[in-house]
Each structure stands twice: as structure tokens, then as C-alpha cells.
């Protein structure tokens, strides 16, 4: 079965994406309310990251969240005073979140697959059309996860990326 014809809702499912993000949140911030699924909602001033899966299934996992929320996560994880997180801190957080989501998604897909290193950006990362999408509310912030098959992996079809802030 090709990446393009695989039914991602059957094989992975939006509910699973929500669970992965919720488990990650619980891991990072034990005891806090778990993120929950919400209808599609765009983050304000989005930043994001992508990670590629190749092998038995070829495609891309894209993460989007607001700049503000990435900054909050960085401050909390690095125990930084407010306003002192630097770009590298935000990029590190974005990269690790998409890495964990991508790795867990990869395990659900057919075939022997490889995970790329994450590509975080302090700019919007718009996923390709199609695929599977989920939005979770993490605290009060929407976080979007998308999985999109790549119909022509050899062409290295990358998602559209917006300008740097």
C-alpha cells in the first residue's frame, strides 16, 4: 500500500495524535491537566517544526503552535526567568516535541521506517494539503499536529514555510 492510499485515520487516528501530545505534556509537566482535542484552531503567530518519515511509508509530520506558547514551554522546561528564552531554546523545544510525536507515529505505520532529524523553525510551517490533522488545547493554547503522505518522496516535497519572524 502506498503512502498516498493508506488511510491515516484507520492506521493512526486523530485521537492517537491527541494522546501522544497529552502523554508528552504529562511527561514534561506531571500533575497538570492533560491537553484535550478541540476543533481546528490556528495558533496565533505560529512557529513550527517538521520531521520526515521514510521507508515503508513516506510522509511528513508537522507541528504548529504559537510563538508565545513555544516561549512558555522553553521558559518552563529550562527554568528561565520570563522573557529570557532565546531562539535556540524555542527551536530545541519545537524540535523535541515533533521528534516525540513523529517517533510515536512512525511506530504505527506499516513497514520499516526511518525518522529524520527534526527541522524546527521560528516561522510558520504549513503542512501539505490532505492527510490527518488534529488540534489539541494545551493549557489555553492550540497545538496542531498533521501527518501528510508524500506521494513523490524522491521529489523531496517539503511543506511551505513562512518567513522568519
Amino acid at each position, binding site marked *: 500500500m502506498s503512502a498516498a492510499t493508506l488511510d491515516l485515520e484507520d492506521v493512526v487516528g486523530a485521537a492517537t495524535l491527541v494522546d501522544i501530545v497529552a502523554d*508528552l505534556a504529562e511527561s*514534561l509537566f506531571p500533575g497538570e491537566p492533560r491537553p484535550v482535542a478541540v476543533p481546528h484552531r490556528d495558533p496565533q503567530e505560529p512557529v513550527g517544526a517538521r520531521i520526515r518519515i521514510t521507508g515503508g511509508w513516506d510522509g511528513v509530520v508537522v507541528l504548529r503552535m504559537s510563538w508565545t506558547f513555544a516561549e512558555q514551554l522553553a521558559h518552563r522546561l*529550562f527554568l528561565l526567568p520570563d522573557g529570557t528564552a532565546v531562539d535556540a531554546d524555542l527551536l530545541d523545544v519545537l524540535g523535541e516535541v515533533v521528534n516525540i510525536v513523529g*517517533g510515536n507515529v*512512525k511506530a504505527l505505520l506499516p513497514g520499516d521506517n526511518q*525518522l529524520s532529524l527534526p527541522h524546527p523553525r521560528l516561522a510558520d510551517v504549513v503542512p501539505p494539503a490532505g492527510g490527518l490533522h488534529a488540534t489539541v488545547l494545551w493549557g489555553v493554547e492550540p497545538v496542531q499536529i498533521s501527518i501528510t503522505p508524500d506521494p513523490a518522496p524522491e521529489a523531496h516535497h517539503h511543506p511551505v514555510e513562512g518567513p522568519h519572524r
Partner: protein
Amino acid sequence: MKALIVDDSRAMRLVVARIVQRLGFETVQAEHGQAALDVLAGSDELPDVALVDWNMPVMDGLELIKAVRAQPRYRGITLMMVTTESEQSRIVQALAAGAHEYLIKPFTEEALEDKLSLLGLVPATADAEAVAW
């Protein structure tokens, strides 16, 4: 006790370090496998355990585990893969290369503590004792 934490994500290194420090470990960190080998080569006191991510630039965790296992001087180091790679085939691959334990991200603090207690590196928790029985 001393733990070497190897992960290209600084955030994840800090998360792991906070947990193991609460359990009484001193920590040293490295951002990829080659950096970890450099740390080990320069250490008079080797770590008791290395907590190793899989996907890292320069040298990945699997290569690091093979390199550590190939050095008799490092045979006292317990190796735990801490990774998002969760397929059974990857777990088998890591254990075959010489990892003693395997923990899948995301993980809870209790899960990491249980793994360390099963390895005899921290006192057994109630959960770990239940698993052992």
C-alpha cells in the same frame, strides 16, 4: 552514582537530569554520541549509567552503544536507550547492540525510576517490585 545523559535536545537532557538528580545521581551531559565518547575518554570516574537517545546528529545512540560495548574499560556502564523509537524491531536491535534497558518517550518520572530500580541503580519502587514478582 553518576549518570551520563546523551540527547541532542537540551530540553530533554534537562528533563532527564532533573529526574535522576532527584534520585541522587550526579549528571553529566552530551549532545550526541561522539560528544559522549569524548566525555567518557576524559573521565577518571566513569558513569554508572548512560541514558542514551537514539536519533542524534554526528553519532546516533545505537552507534554509541556499540562503541561503548566495544571498549572493555566501559564494561561497568549500564546502558539505557531513552528514545522515541518504539517499534519492537528497534528495541531488539538496541538490546542486541548491548543496551540493558529501553525507555520510550514520552515517559513518566515513575517509569524512568522503575527502569533504574530494575537495573539495581536505585532502591526498588513498589511498581518495580510488582513487575519483578
